[in-house]
């Protein structure tokens, strides 16, 4: 098993000193208390930066350099997460891609947009590519109450809850053709997520799976004039760095949280136990998300 952590800023990494046991305690205990009983690997294997949901969370030049310095200091490689991007945003990202490919030519980039993937393949062929979880479509609605469903007798429903874009041979052929080496997913809320998908390497995010997202960010609209509310922003002051909301829908079967423009479900304790047990025996990469960490 490989353990990665997604950091919101390089300073946080320096402050936390990136010791897995402390990070796990800080991130997981508020949700699971002492019931998880997981002893993580003694050291981290990888650091994630950037974001798969929001273009404003991509690192600027100084921040990228700080991440690279942290990576050098810790002796762990970096992965850059990228979201869906417009053409203007792609232009703004060119210096980031240039600098990253220059500083770490073999580094990994997670793509969630076919256009971003095409650009990286054409312009930065040395970078290693992973398909991100926004591309992995499946059923993740936290409102389905399985007590009302005859799932045992319903193979169609079972397929719906366990299948995703990435599990299909069509996608896998296309991904290979497009130079993708790794597939990144969430643990599905109702289905047995497939851990292995040879010839691809696999990553699973924890302890949150994503439900929905958008380019309109309610959190970013707080305290703004009407002209900057519910509109894709050209710039953002980043209130999501410090604010996480829990949503309390009556029909939710999971704990649900909002961070920035994205809504997440928290894995249940049995899901976490199952994930950690299955991951411990394989080559899978687990990506620890601190959200506001």
């Amino acid at each position, binding site marked *: 098993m490989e353990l990665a952590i997604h950091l919101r800023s390089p300073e946080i990494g320096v402050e936390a000193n990136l010791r897995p046991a402390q990070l796990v305690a800080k991130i997981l205990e508020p949700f699971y208390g002492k019931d998880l009983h997981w002893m993580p690997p003694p050291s981290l294997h990888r650091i994630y930066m950037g974001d798969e*949901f929001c273009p404003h969370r991509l690192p600027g030049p100084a921040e990228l350099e700080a991440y690279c310095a942290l990576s050098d200091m810790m002796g762990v490689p970096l992965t850059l997460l990228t979201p*869906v*991007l*417009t*053409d*203007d*945003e*792609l232009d703004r990202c060119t210096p980031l891609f240039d600098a990253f490919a220059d500083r770490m030519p073999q580094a990994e980039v997670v793509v969630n*947009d*076919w*256009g*971003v*993937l*095409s650009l990286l393949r054409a312009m930065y062929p040395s970078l290693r590519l992973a398909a991100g979880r926004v*591309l992995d*479509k*499946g*059923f*993740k*609605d936290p*409102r389905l109450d399985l007590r009302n469903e005859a799932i045992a007798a*319903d*193979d*169609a*429903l079972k*397929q*719906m809850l366990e*299948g*995703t*874009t990435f599990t*299909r041979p*069509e*996608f896998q*052929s296309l991904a290979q053709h497009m130079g993708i080496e790794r597939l990144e997913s969430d643990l599905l809320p109702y289905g047995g997520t497939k851990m292995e998908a040879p010839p691809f390497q696999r990553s699973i995010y924890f302890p949150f799976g*994503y*439900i*929905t*997202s*958008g*380019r*309109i960010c*309610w959190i970013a*609209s707080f*305290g703004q004039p*009407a002209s900057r*509310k*519910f*509109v*894709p922003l*050209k710039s953002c002051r980043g209130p999501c760095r410090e*604010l*996480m*909301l*829990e*949503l*309390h*829908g009556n*029909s*939710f079967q999971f704990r649900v949280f*909002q961070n920035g423009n994205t809504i997440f479900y928290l894995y249940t304790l049995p899901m976490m136990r199952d994930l950690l047990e299955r991951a411990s025996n394989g080559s899978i990469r687990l990506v620890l998300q601190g959200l506001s960490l």
Partner: protein
Amino acid sequence: MRIVAPVSSTSEVEMLLHHGADELYLGLATPEWETRFGHHLWMNRRSSSQANFSSWQDIEEVVTLAHRKGAVVHMALNAPFYTDDALAFLLGLCRKAVEKTGIDSIIVSDINLLVRLAGEALPVRIHLSSLGSCFNARSADFYRSLGVRRIILPRQLGLSDIRRIVAASGSNMEFEVFALNDGCYFEEGFCRTSHSLGPFCLAQGEPSIHGSPPDGISPAFLAEGMKDLREYLWTQNNCGSSFQADGLPNGPCSLCRFGHFRDWGIHAVKIVGREASFVRKLGSIQLVKAVMDEARKGAGHEEIARLSRSLRKTPELCHKGFMCYFRE
């Protein structure tokens, strides 16, 4: 520019074509599908009985009527993803739709269905649904390589983003944009919820701050944010599915921008709402056609915007911008 209108009954076809629809799009929900795949996996993005046809004969009739008037018909198979069995079923269904009904194009979102259809090389055009999330010109190129002939652009693009995509693609791709009705707080292509359980955005409940509240964020501040969100969701939901006093429908639109779309080479504008009533569809096509007529006559951008706002009769909502597609 052409007007694309939703149809869910043979009785609507003549009305839509008479009032200016150049293209129709429809969905199918057969009893066999429901029996095999249940009520959670939909064949397309909207699956009430009100939104879809259930009979091949009716679809054939729609296509015949449309073709007779020079209009084309698209079939939506735009669920975000399909299961293994559903995909196999749909390939057979596509062959049947092309051979039996003569539909002109299939609207697809699922990348796996897209890849399979590219391999099938059926005599039918493939259009990419807005759920395909084409947000940049390179993405448009990628989809073209899979045989897509038209892309329906997502609602959360800005106007300048649309201009760049269309300009970069030239005549290699047709683009369609949303014209009227139904917004979405989330981006459909990024959303993993199911409308079979109702709209997720209306079921989020009250939020609470997790952990220590950051400076300046109080429960009162959050309550103010919720008030805004409720208003925004109301506008996205066609202002509570309401109508103006003159019978025209309320709801999100891009009517003001038809001059821009015309000048940039947008191929078609789309009216949303297969599940809408006959009356709402009638009002919608009348509204879009009135603005389209001005655009076709060569009216200037300001002139078109003025006409659009005067027709909508909701200046306060137009001014606030919450009802606008493609804001930036």
